[in-house]
């Protein structure tokens, strides 16, 4: 038996792929951030120094201007007093020129400082804008990819992976996502493998069980051929062996059908089939059993029905299964009816009984495996609990639908819709 091996390790392949297309490693992005931060600090420092120097220059200018006025006023006082008037006038003119020079100088410095601060501000803002757009861009691409990959993964694409890149945060997120997706894919692979092993097991087991069952059934039949040599008690015992063997065979056949269905190996050979003879055939098979319990079994086939495209044996199996259920779950004296009517582009077959019916919660799971009617009833019911699950698989394989309705205490109706021969597929649901 093969051990369980995880499927191809595509997460690793995905990462290798992402590294080839990689643009910015997380460490580079971090260095860039630090670089920008240092540049900001230097620029801010320079701006502070520049503005402080400018304020000092302004103060110096005002002090010098004030001193110049004082000198001029002193000179003007000396002119008024008639002391060195000529020299004092020269001083007044010099001081005016000096102040004009100081004024021109500070104006130039103000302009330079304003230009420097303005340029610095613009540079800082541009840098900040660049850094932020860069940050957003490096985050946006991986995040968009993550959203996209998550959507695909949720939609069942287990191959969905992201390229691991961008900032360390988004890279970590991407790595975590890829790891999770890889794990999901590995588990899905394991599950598929287990399913295949289970199918193989059922196929092999049902095959291996057939030979001993053939012997048991064959020898029990052999005993019954010499019925006259057996006591009544012995004959009854052999009948029990035969009954149980037949039940086992039915169970094996059902299990085999289900395993085939699961493995996609349940095949049908559809051919145009006349509905009336199909119903007739199934009813004939059941007649002796229903008569044995005084149950009435009637068939009503609408005249002029189109042929259906079915595998005759398989749809007969479905009908017999539905009739067997109606027969086994209904009490003695019950009425069972099979009807065939036209419905849309096909034919609806309905099996109706006036037996005990089912509550809604049971009806909901009636096509599940090993679901059977009420436990109190199942004691005398010989079914395998697989019949309806198989019937559903078979009907769906034909492109048809199957459904059930039931009223507790009034009986149940099972409806099978099958496409008419030549029809494309189900166009009318079985209600």
């Amino acid at each position, binding site marked *: 038996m093969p051990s369980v091996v995880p499927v191809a390790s595509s997460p690793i392949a995905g990462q290798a792929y992402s590294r080839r297309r990689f643009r910015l490693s997380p460490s580079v992005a971090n260095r860039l951030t630090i670089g920008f931060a240092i540049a900001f600090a230097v620029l801010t420092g320079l701006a502070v120094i520049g503005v402080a120097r400018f304020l000092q220059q302004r103060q110096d200018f005002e002090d010098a201007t004030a001193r110049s006025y004082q000198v001029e006023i002193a000179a003007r006082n000396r002119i008024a007093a008639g002391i060195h008037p000529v020299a004092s006038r020269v001083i007044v003119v010099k001081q005016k020129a000096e102040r004009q020079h100081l004024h021109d100088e500070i104006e130039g410095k103000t302009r330079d400082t304003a230009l420097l601060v303005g340029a610095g501000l613009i540079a800082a803002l541009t840098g900040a804008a660049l850094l932020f757009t860069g940050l957003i861009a490096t985050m946006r691409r991986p995040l968009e990819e993550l959203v996209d990959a998550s959507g695909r993964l949720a939609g069942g694409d287990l191959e969905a992976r992201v390229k691991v890149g961008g900032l360390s945060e988004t890279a970590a997120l991407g790595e975590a996502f890829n790891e999770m997706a890889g794990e999901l894919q590995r588990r899905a692979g394991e599950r598929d493998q287990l399913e295949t092993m289970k199918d193989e097991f059922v196929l092999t087991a*049902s095959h291996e069980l*057939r030979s001993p*069952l*053939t*012997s048991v059934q*064959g020898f029990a039949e*052999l005993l019954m051929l010499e019925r006259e040599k057996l006591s009544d008690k012995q004959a009854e015992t052999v009948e029990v062996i035969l009954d149980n063997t037949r039940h086992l*065979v039915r169970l094996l056949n059902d299990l*085999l059908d289900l395993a*085939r269905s699961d493995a996609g190996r349940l095949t049908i050979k559809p051919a145009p089939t006349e509905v009336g003879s199909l119903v007739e055939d199934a009813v004939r098979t059941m007649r002796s059993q229903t008569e044995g319990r005084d149950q009435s079994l009637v068939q009503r086939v609408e005249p002029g029905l189109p042929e259906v495209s079915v595998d005759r044996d398989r749809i007969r199996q479905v009908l017999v299964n539905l009739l067997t259920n109606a027969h086994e779950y209904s009490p003695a004296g019950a009425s069972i009816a099979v009807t065939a009517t036209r419905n849309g582009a096909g034919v609806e077959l309905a099996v109706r009984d006036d037996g005990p019916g089912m509550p809604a919660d049971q009806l909901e799971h009636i096509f599940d495996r090993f679901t059977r009617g009420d436990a109190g009833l199942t004691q005398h019911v010989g079914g395998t609990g697989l019949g309806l699950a198989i019937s559903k698989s078979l009907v769906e394989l034909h492109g048809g639908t199957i459904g059930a309705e039931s009223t507790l205490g009034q009986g149940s109706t099972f409806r099978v819709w099958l496409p008419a021969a030549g029809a494309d597929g189900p166009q009318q649901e079985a209600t």
Partner: protein
Amino acid sequence: MTRVLIADDSETILLLLRTRLEMEGYEVLTAADGVEVLEAIGGADPAPDILLLDAMMPRKSGIDALRELRAQGLETPILIVSAHQDQMDAGAASDVEVSGYVTKPIDFDDLFARIAELTGS
């Protein structure tokens, strides 16, 4: 008397088949696998009228024996006994001429009817 060669690796199945066939008045030859079938066909006198071979047997399967016998030009009717549909599908898919398939558990009434039909007895 119609001679039937039966082959199965299970002794109980062989006993069952032999008993039922003899009760029906057939003369029965047995083989435990495909190799014994080929030996029996070579040495049997008179040759069997029909062969009933289990599809799966050790050493040589019924399907392989069937293939070799047909290659040798044997035209005797051959029925293949198989456990389930899948084997029959596999057999039917091959191009070897087979007279029919019998599934386990064996429906003896059906089997006798088919033997009678194939051998004209």
